[in-house]
Every structure is written in structure tokens, then in C-alpha cells.
């Protein structure tokens, strides 16, 4: 008898919960739009990855110019970084997407087929923007390379380019990793505004669905959760990468296969 009451109570609760959940959101719309949203997410990944990669290619030489002692080299880079970091990304995007057509002669130039397309405008804007932030990151990282290592490389007769390639840059990239990870996250978050110039990335896709279904909540909360998942997956990935790259800085385990057995004390001095 008691079991029956319990089952009845449970089924009543389940129905109540189902009605509550059904009333809370239109789940069907969410489920139906998931394939489209995932396609949008792929577009977001493309935008972010391409911009970050191109930005990296621009930022490394700029960072080297930035740490130069020659004012003709570092001053223009400083100005570029200051301007890009001192103005909103949205205004930069508008300037390139809407504004570029006003430049005399550009509509006849080879750039116009690209500047006419919102996709290339967004990639260009994000690239120029992240390049400025990455320049600043790599500048700090290059300055953090211990001077003794540079001196040592010079004393064994390394040429400047070899010194850069073998000592300064590899060290700098390692130092830059945490800040670079942060920049990846920030670029991911910033990519949402590409939807304003009609790009169908994650946010743009959601907006397109909303204009048909009026399901604001459902879609915005769904994409918010998707962004959240992607962000923290990236955070976790970078943390693992850092952990792997800092193995030489950690103490050797005292137990397990990697532990140093007490029988080999001679090695101890090598640390």
C-alpha cells in the first residue's frame, strides 16, 4: 500500500516537473535548432582560429620591433598598439566594414572584392585587433627572457638570427603562454560581435532563429551555455598544456616509477 502511494506520488511529481520544465522553455525549438547552432559554432571557431593565427604572424615581428632601442622601429608599433587597444572593437569593425568604401580609389582596387564581404572584414578587424594585444604579450615575454641566457648564447658566438630562433623566441613563447591563453578566450568572446555585420557564427545563427521563432530566452541561454562550455574547455586545455611544459620546474615524484631510488645519490648533485 505504501509503495503504491509512493509510486503515485512520484508519478505526480514527475508530471509536475515535466509541466514545469515545459512551461519554463520551449524545448522543441532548442532541440530543433541545435544542428544549426553547431554549424554556427564551427563558423565561430574558424573566425577565431584564423584571426588568432594571422594575428600571431603579424605580432611576432611587431613585438621584435617593439623591444628594439631604435625609436623609428618601436614608436610606430607603440602607436599602433595604443590606438588598437584604446578604441572599441565594434568601432574598428564598423570602420573597416562600412567605412572602407569611402576611401578614394578603393572600390577600383584589388582589395575591394574582399572588403565588400563581411567575412573578410571581420577577419581583418579581429586580426588587426588581436595582433595589437599579442604584440604587447610577446613584448613582455621577450623582456622576461633572462639576460644571462642571451649573454651565454652571444659568448658562444651565435648570430643574431640564431639567437632569436634558438634562445629568445622559444623562451618567450613559453613565458607568453598564460597571457596568450587569456587572449584566445577574449577573442572567442569578442567574436560574438561579428554577428552585427551579418556573419552567421554562433550568435548570428541564434539571432536568425530568434527572428523567426521569437524564442529569445531559449536561444540566448543555449548559446550562452555553449560559449561557457567552449571557454572552460579551452581554459582546461591550456592549463594542461602549461602543466606539461613546466615538468622540469616541478619536484620529481617521491613515489611511483619516476621516483629516484635512494641507491643513486650521485645524481642528486645534478639538480
Amino acid at each position, binding site marked *: 500500500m505504501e509503495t503504491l502511494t509512493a509510486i503515485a506520488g512520484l508519478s505526480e511529481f514527475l508530471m509536475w516537473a515535466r509541466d514545469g520544465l515545459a512551461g519554463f522553455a520551449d524545448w522543441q525549438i532548442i532541440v530543433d535548432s541545435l544542428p544549426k547552432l553547431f554549424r554556427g559554432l564551427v563558423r565561430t571557431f574558424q573566425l577565431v582560429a584564423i584571426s588568432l593565427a594571422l594575428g600571431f604572424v603579424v605580432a611576432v615581428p611587431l613585438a621584435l620591433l617593439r623591444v628594439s632601442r631604435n625609436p623609428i622601429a618601436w614608436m610606430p608599433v607603440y602607436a599602433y598598439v595604443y590606438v588598437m587597444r*584604446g578604441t572599441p572593437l565594434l*568601432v*574598428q569593425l564598423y*570602420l573597416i566594414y562600412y567605412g572602407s*568604401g569611402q576611401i578614394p580609389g578603393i572600390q577600383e582596387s584589388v582589395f575591394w572584392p574582399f572588403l565588400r564581404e563581411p567575412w573578410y572584414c571581420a577577419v581583418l578587424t579581429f586580426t588587426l585587433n588581436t595582433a595589437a594585444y599579442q604584440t604587447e604579450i610577446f613584448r613582455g615575454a621577450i623582456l622576461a627572457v633572462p639576460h644571462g641566457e642571451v649573454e651565454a648564447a652571444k659568448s658562444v658566438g651565435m648570430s643574431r638570427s640564431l639567437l632569436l630562433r634558438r634562445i629568445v623566441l622559444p623562451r618567450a613563447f613559453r613565458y607568453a603562454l598564460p597571457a596568450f591563453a587569456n587572449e584566445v578566450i577574449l577573442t572567442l568572446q569578442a567574436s560574438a560581435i561579428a554577428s552585427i555585420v551579418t556573419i552567421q557564427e554562433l550568435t548570428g545563427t541564434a539571432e536568425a532563429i530568434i527572428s523567426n521563432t521569437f524564442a529569445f*530566452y531559449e536561444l540566448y541561454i543555449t548559446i550562452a551555455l555553449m*560559449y561557457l562550455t567552449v571557454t572552460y574547455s579551452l581554459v582546461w586545455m591550456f592549463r594542461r598544456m602549461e602543466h606539461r611544459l613546466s615538468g622540469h620546474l616541478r619536484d620529481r615524484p617521491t613515489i611511483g616509477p619516476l621516483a629516484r631510488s635512494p641507491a643513486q645519490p650521485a645524481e642528486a648533485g645534478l639538480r
Partner: protein
Amino acid sequence: MIDLHGYGWQMLLGLSVTVQAALCSIVLAVLLGLLAAAAKLSRWRALRAIAEAYTVSIRGVPEYVLLLLVFFGTSRVLQTIARQFGYDEYIEIPPFFAGVFAIGVVYGAFTTEVFRGAILAVPKGQIEAAKAVGMPSFLLWRRILMPQVIRYAVPGLGNVWLVLLKATALMSVVNLDELTRKAAISAGYTKEPFTFYMVAAALYLCLTIGSNLGLEALERRSSRGVRRA
């Protein structure tokens, strides 16, 4: 000189709205940050969990998506509530409030971390000493913690301010007549988008430079009691 076709005043008007929106947002962000930082350091696990959930979720979602969620979502919540009371009109949140609310809530998550770090930076011995002489917690907060927390927090808050200032440009999307939207409107009338977005960018740059100067002065003032190496 650039010809602005008489839209120069409009741009300056937009600039003033941008500054107002940014100031209101930073006040909200600082208040939320103080509350959430206090919650994060509190003894109660529930408070800590709420504050943690707040910062973690806000920092994982683009501010633009949150702004849209607040702008469209809140009006729907209000509408649903109003319908219960028999009011059936369309309710729209004024863009200024929606914008300030969204940006304030987002940057509150960042100020939380700034304040948390600043509170933890106050040497423990000082707090113990204050307790030892029998200071009540409010007095301890006012005389020992706050003066030092402000000093430690100023550089971090300055950074948040600089980022927040630029984030107000997003409010143009919910039709707030701030600098970016004024530039878009002027560009539409004059068919000179490049000119007006350049002017907008230059004005934002002026705000950034001005803020940098102001923040430097503030940092100097807030650490005037500190001996330099």
C-alpha cells in the same frame, strides 16, 4: 579640417552619453564586485558558491550575448509578470538601463576578482592586531581594510575601467544614442562612414588617454603613504 556637415555636436552629445553610461556601469560593477568579493571570502559556503557561480558563468559568456539576454530577456520577464496582473501592453526596457545593467553585471565579475585579491593582500597580522585591541568588525573594515584595499585595488580597477569604457560601444546595438550609434546615424545621413567612425575612434582614444592620465594620478594619490624602493 574635416567637414562634419554639422554633426559634430551630435558626436559630442554621444560622447557625453557614453561617459555617463560608463560611469553608471562602473559604479554598479564596483558595488557588485565588493559584495561578491565579500561573499567569496565569507564563512558561509552557500554565499561562496553563489559568488563563484556568478564570476565563473559571467566570464565564460560574451558580454554581447549577455547584453542581448538582459535587453530582450528582462522585458519578457516583466511582461510575463505584468500579464499576471492584467497589464497587456508591450514593455520595453529603456536602453540606458539595460545597457548599464548588463555591462555593470559583466564587469562586476571582473571587479570581484580585483577586490578579492586586494582584500587578501592586506597583511593578516594587521587584522589580528585590530581584533586584539577589540575593534568591532565594522570599524576594522573601515579603518584597517578599506584604506588599504582601495590602494591595492586601484590599478586593477583602472584596467577594468579602460575595458568597460570600450564595452559601452555595444550599447549602440540596443539603440542607446551613445557615441558609436551617433556615428552610425551621422554616417547614414552624410554617406561618409569612414569620416564619422574615424571621429568616433578618435574620441574614444581621447577618453582612453584621459583615463590613463587620471588613473596615474589616482594611483599616485592612493599610494602616497607608501615608501618607494
